[in-house]
C-alpha cells in the first residue's frame, strides 16, 4: 500500500489543523506535537494501528483497518459516530497488553469505556449493547488484535511464520505417507521372495485352512523356489530402505512439531507468553543462533536424505554413486515443498546491540546465507537514527539476505513481507523502527513522521527480484519516492518540503522559540539554509498556547538532516530514481534533440516557403486562365505532364504490365535444377532401403531418419538407386560430381524425376 498522498494531505490539512487546535488538550504543556503535520499523520496512523488476525480463511490476509471499517458499516450508529474512540480505546488496551489481545476481550474494554463516556439513556444503552453484539457476531472466532507495540511485530512475525510452515507441512504430509507406503511395498515384495516365505509353515498360513486342504504345502514349498521370479533384495539395499523408512515414519509423527517449533533468541528478558515458541535468553544471541541452527539442522538433513533415498528407490533409480551424494547432502538441497523442515530460528535484537558487539558474527551469518530470521528493533531515540547507520544496506551488500526496513506505523508491511518470505531459504532481516513516548498515539505519530522526514526510510531488498540493485531494492513505499522531500503545507499555508531537520526538531523539547516579530530577513526555512548566507534556520512549531511559532534549528540538527538527505540520495541512486550518468545522458540527448529540432524547423520553414511560392504561382496561373477562359482540366504547365486516366484503365494497365513482365522474366531460381544431392529428412520413413544401398553414404540422425552423411562415400549410381527405392521419394540425387564414372547418360536420365 504505497502512499503518495501529498495532494491528499493538502486537501485535508486545514480541517485537520482546525480539529487539532479545537480539540487541544490544555493539560499538555510541552509542544511535542509541534509540527502540525503530525496531527495529520496521527489521524492516518490511527487507521492502521489496530489490525486483526483471522483464524479462518483467508487467515492471514486481512489485518488493517478492520475495526474501523466494521463500525462504519450499515447497522451501526453509535459506534460509527464514535469510531475514533473505538479505535483509540482498542489501541490503548492492546498496547497495555504488550501489543496483542484476543478480539473479544478488546471489545469488552471498548464497550466498558463507551458506557462510561457516553452516559446514555436506557434506550441508548440498549442500542449500544445491540451494536456490540452485532460487532461480536461479525468477529471471526479466535481473532486477535495486534497493536503497533514493539512486541507486536515479533508476535506477528512468529504467528505468520508458523502458519506458513504448518501449511507447508500439511500439504507435504501425504507425500511422506506415499513414500512410506512405496518403501513398504518394496520391502513386502522382498519378504515374499525371501526364503522364509517359502517354508512350509508360512505357505500353509498363506493358504489358509481351505487352501491347505486343497494344496500340498510341502510340495508347493519345494516348487516355489523354482517358480519365484522375484530376485531377492540385496542386503545393503534392504538396510538403506529400512533406515529411510524409520526416518520417514518418525517424520510423519514429528513433522507437525518440527513445523511449529520456532527458536527465539534474544538477550532481553521477554514476555514468556509468546505462543509456543522456544525462547532462549542469551547474552550473545547471534552466536547462540548459529549454534541452535547447526544443532537443529542435523534432523533436517536426516529427513531430506530419507526423502531423497525413498524417491530414488521408488523409481528404481538408486545407483551406487548416490551413496556419496547423499552423504554430502546439506540443508540447501531442500525443495520448495519441504521448507518446513528447515529449523526456524528468530533472533530478536536491538539495532544497537547488533551493531556493536555482534556485528562481525551477524555479518558472518548473513554472508554464509544461513536461513536465520532477524528482527532488529530500532528505537527512534537510538543513536543509529541520529548517526544514520543502516544495517539493512550493510547486510544487503552481501547480496544473500532479504531485507525489510519498516516501522511500527506500517504493520501491513511487516505482515505482507512475512507472508512472502516466511519459507525463504535466505536470511531474512526485518528492521522495525519505533518511537518511545508515554502516549502511544504520539509515539506512533513519531514513527510515521520519521518516515516522512526520511529519517527511517522504508525499503525492501529482495534478492529474488533480479540481479541489480535497482530491481532488488524497492523504496516505493516511501511518500513521493522520486522527490528529495515530500511536499507538505506548512502553517503559513504554503506547500513546502518536509525535511529531516523539521521532523527531528519537532522530536526535541525545549528548543528556542522566536517571537513573532523577529526580523524576517535574518531567518530562512531550514530547507533553504546555506551556511555561508549567515541566516538563522527555523522550522514551524506550536507554542504552549497553541500559537504557531518559529523555532531555531541548531547546527547538529542541520548536520543530521544533511546526512539523512545523503542517505536518501543513496537509496534513490541504488533504485535508479536518481542516476548521475542517466541524468547526464538525458541532458545530452535533450540538447541533441533541441539542435536537431531547430535544424528540422529551419528545413521545414524553407519547404513551407517554397510550397507557398509554388502555390502562389499556381493560383496566379489558374486565376489568369479563369480570367482568360482557358480549359481548367488541362494540366498546369509546370507540373510534370501526367496523362489523366479514368478509373478502369489503370487496372488493365497493371494486368498488361505483369503479363508482359512474366513473359520476359527469367526462370525463378527455385525452378532451376538442384546441383547438390540432399535428403528431405523429415519425410524419411526409416525404412532402411537407402542404408541397404550404401551405409556410409546414408546414415540415420538422432530421430532415426536418414540424411546424406557423405556424398563422396559412394557413386552417383548409388544415389540414384537409393532415390528410386526410397518409398518417401525424399532422396534428391542432384547433379553428378565431376569425374564420377558411374554417371552415364542412362543414370543421369533416371535421376531426372528425383531432382
Amino acid at each position: 500500500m504505497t502512499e503518495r498522498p501529498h495532494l491528499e494531505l493538502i486537501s485535508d490539512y486545514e480541517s485537520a489543523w482546525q480539529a487539532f487546535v479545537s480539540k487541544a488538550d490544555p493539560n499538555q504543556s510541552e509542544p511535542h506535537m509541534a509540527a502540525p503535520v503530525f496531527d495529520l499523520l496521527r489521524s492516518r496512523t490511527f487507521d492502521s494501528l489496530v489490525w486483526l488476525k483471522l483464524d479462518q480463511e483467508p487467515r492471514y490476509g486481512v489485518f488493517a483497518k478492520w475495526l474501523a471499517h466494521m463500525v462504519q458499516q450499515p447497522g451501526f450508529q453509535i459506534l460509527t459516530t464514535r469510531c475514533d474512540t473505538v479505535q483509540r480505546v482498542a489501541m490503548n488496551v492492546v498496547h497495555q497488553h504488550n501489543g496483542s489481545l484476543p478480539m473479544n476481550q478488546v471489545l469488552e474494554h471498548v464497550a466498558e469505556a463507551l458506557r462510561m463516556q457516553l452516559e446514555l439513556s436506557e434506550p441508548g444503552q440498549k442500542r449500544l449493547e445491540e451494536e456490540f453484539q452485532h460487532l461480536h457476531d461479525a468477529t471471526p472466532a479466535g481473532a486477535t488484535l495486534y497493536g503497533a507495540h514493539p512486541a507486536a511485530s515479533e508476535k506477528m512475525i512468529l504467528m505468520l511464520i508458523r502458519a506458513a510452515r504448518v501449511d507447508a507441512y500439511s500439504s507435504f504430509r501425504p507425500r511422506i505417507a506415499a513414500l512410506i507406503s512405496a518403501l513398504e511395498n518394496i520391502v513386502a515384495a522382498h519378504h515374499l521372495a525371501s526364503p522364509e516365505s517359502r517354508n512350509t509353515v508360512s505357505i500353509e498360513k498363506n493358504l489358509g485352512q481351505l487352501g491347505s486342504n486343497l494344496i500340498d504345502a510341502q510340495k508347493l514349498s519345494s516348487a516355489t523356489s523354482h517358480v519365484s521370479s522375484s530376485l531377492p533384495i540385496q542386503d545393503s539395499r534392504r538396510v538403506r530402505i529400512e533406515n529411510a523408512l524409520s526416518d520417514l515414519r518418525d517424520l510423519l509423527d514429528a513433522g507437525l512439531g518440527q513445523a511449529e517449533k520456532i527458536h527465539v533468541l534474544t538477550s532481553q528478558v521477554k514476555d514468556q507468553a509468546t505462543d509456543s515458541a522456544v525462547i532462549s535468553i542469551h547474552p550473545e544471541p547471534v552466536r547462540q543462533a548459529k549454534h541452535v541452527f547447526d544443532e537443529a539442522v542435523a534432523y533436517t538433513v536426516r529427513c531430506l536424505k530419507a526423502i531423497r533415498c525413498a524417491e530414488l528407490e521408488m523409481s528404481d533409480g538408486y545407483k551406487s554413486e548416490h551413496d556419496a551424494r547423499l552423504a554430502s547432502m546439506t540443508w540447501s538441497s531442500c525443495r520448495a515443498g519441504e521448507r518446513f523442515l528447515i529449523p526456524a530460528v528468530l533472533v530478536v535484537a536491538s539495532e544497537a546491540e547488533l551493531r556493536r558487539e555482534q556485528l562481525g558474527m551477524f555479518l558472518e551469518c548473513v554472508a554464509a546465507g544461513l536461513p536465520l530470521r532477524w528482527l532488529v528493533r530500532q528505537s527512534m531515540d537510538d543513536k543509529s537514527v541520529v548517526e544514520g547507520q543502516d544495517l539493512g544496506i550493510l547486510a544487503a551488500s552481501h547480496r544473500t539476505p532479504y531485507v525489510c526496513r519498516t516501522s511500527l506505523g506500517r504493520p501491513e508491511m511487516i505482515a505482507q513481507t512475512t507472508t512472502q518470505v516466511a519459507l525463504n531459504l535466505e536470511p531474512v532481516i526485518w528492521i522495525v523502527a519505533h518511537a518511545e513516548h508515554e502516549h502511544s498515539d504520539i509515539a506512533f505519530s513519531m514513527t510515521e513522521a520519521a518516515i516522512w522526514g526520511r529519517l527511517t526510510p522504508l525499503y525492501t531488498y529482495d534478492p529474488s527480484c533480479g540481479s541489480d540493485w535497482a530491481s532488488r531494492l524497492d523504496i516505493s513505499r516511501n511518500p513521493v519516492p522520486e522527490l528529495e522531500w515530500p511536499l507538505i503545507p506548512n502553517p503559513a499555508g504554503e506547500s513546502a518540503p518536509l525535511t529531516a531537520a523539521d521532523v527531528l526538531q519537532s522530536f526535541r523539547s525545549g528548543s528556542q522559540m522566536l517571537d513573532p516579530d523577529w526580523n524576517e530577513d535574518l531567518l530562512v526555512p531550514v530547507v533553504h539554509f546555506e551556511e555561508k548566507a549567515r541566516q538563522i534556520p527555523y522550522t514551524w512549531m506550536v507554542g504552549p498556547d497553541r500559537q504557531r511559532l518559529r523555532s531555531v534549528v541548531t547546527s547538529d540538527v542541520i548536520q543530521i538532516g544533511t546526512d539523512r538527505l545523503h542517505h536518501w540520495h543513496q537509496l534513490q541512486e541504488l533504485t535508479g530514481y536518481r542516476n548521475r550518468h542517466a541524468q547526464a545522458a538525458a541532458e545530452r540527448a535533450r540538447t541533441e534533440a533541441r539542435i536537431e529540432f531547430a535544424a528540422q524547423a529551419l528545413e521545414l520553414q524553407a519547404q513551407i516557403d517554397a510550397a507557398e511560392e509554388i502555390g502562389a504561382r499556381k493560383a496566379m496561373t489558374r486565376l489568369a486562365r479563369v480570367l482568360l477562359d482557358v480549359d481548367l482540366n488541362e494540366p498546369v504547365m509546370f507540373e510534370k505532364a501526367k496523362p489523366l486516366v479514368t478509373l478502369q484503365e489503370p487496372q488493365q494497365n497493371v494486368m498488361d504490365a505483369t503479363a508482359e513482365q512474366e513473359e520476359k522474366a527469367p526462370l525463378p531460381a527455385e525452378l532451376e535444377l538442384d546441383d547438390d544431392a540432399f535428403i528431405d529428412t523429415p519425410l524419411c520413413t526409416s525404412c532402411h532401403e537407402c542404408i541397404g544401398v550404401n551405409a556410409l553414404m546414408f546414415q540415420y540422425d538422432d530421430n532415426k531418419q536418414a540424411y546424406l552423411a557423405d556424398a563422396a562415400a559412394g557413386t552417383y549410381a548409388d544415389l540414384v538407386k537409393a532415390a528410386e527405392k526410397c518409398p518417401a521419394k525424399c532422396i534428391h540425387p542432384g547433379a553428378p560430381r565431376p569425374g564420377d564414372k558411374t554417371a552415364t547418360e542412362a543414370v543421369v536420365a533416371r535421376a531426372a524425376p528425383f531432382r
Partner: protein
Amino acid sequence: MMKTDWMFEPDSRHFVLEDYEAALARWCPGCGDHAVLNAVQKLCRDEQLPPEQTVMVSGIGCSSRFPHYMKTYGFHGLHGRALPVACGVRSRRPELNIFVSTGDGDCCSIGTAHWIHALRYNMNMVVMMFDNRVYGLTKNQTSPTSPKGESSNTHPQGAFLSPLNPISVCLSITNASFVAQTVDWNPVHLYETIRAGFEHQGLAFIRIFQRCPHFTDHAFKEFKDEPEKVLLMTHERGIPVNDTVKRVFTNSMQHDPADIDQAHKLARRDDVLPIGLFLRNDQSERYDEYTKRGVNMSNGEKLSALNRELDRFAI
C-alpha cells in the same frame, strides 16, 4: 538465490531413442512397419515414457512382431487376440501406457469380435491397425481389406468381394471415441496421429496404410505418386498438421471430428484417400473406470474378500 539441489531428481532418468530400441527389426527393407516403429519410439522418447511402464501388445502377423523391437514390456499374443490381452492389462494395471499393434488380417478377420467390443469398452490405449491389404507373414493371402480383383495365393484369379471398410465399421460401433487414418509414408502425419491417439483418453483406433514392398508394393502407388489423391482432413480438434505435411498433401478440407455424419460420408469416399481424424468423442464412457476398482487392495483384503465369498457356500 537458487539453492535447491537437483542432483537427486529421480526424473533425471532421461531416455533417448536407443532406450526404446530392442532387436534390429527383421522386416524387409522398405516395409512401412519401420516407419511406424520409428514413430512410436520417437513418441516414447518425446513423452519420456519409462520403458518399464510401457507395454506393446500384439496378435500374430508381420506387424505383430512389433513388441520384439521395442525395449519395453510386450505381449506377443495369439492370432486376433491382441485386444482382449490389452484390455486385460488395462483392467488391472491402469497406470501403464498401452500400445497395440495388429494387422488387417489379425484385427478385421480372425479378431473381429474382439475388435468391436474393444472399441465399445473404450479403455485407454492406442490401437495401431497396420493395413497392408494382405496376409504378409503367411506369404500373400487375401485379407478382408484386399481390393476386389487383387490376386493372391488364396484367390489367384483375384478377390471376389469388395473389401471391408474398417473405418466405416469403427464409426458405427457404439461408444467408439477416436477413429483416425494415416499413411506410413508421411512420417510427420503418422507421428502426429499416433501422438494424438496417445493423448486421447480412451481407445484410439488408428488405421495405418502400410506398404508391403514384397506383396502389395503397387497397392498405394497411386497415392504416393499423386499425393493430391490423398485428402488431408484438418481441424483444430483434429490431427495437427505442419508445413511439411501441407507441402506434400495439398488437397485438404476441414472436418470437425464431432461431425459423425460427415465422417461416415468421408469414410465411404473411394475417389480419394482421406487421412486425419474422423471421429473424436471425449464424452464416451470408459470401461476401465470400472475395472480398475479394488486395484489397491492388499493381499490380506483380497484374502478376506475371497473367504467371505467362499463362506457363503459353507454348510
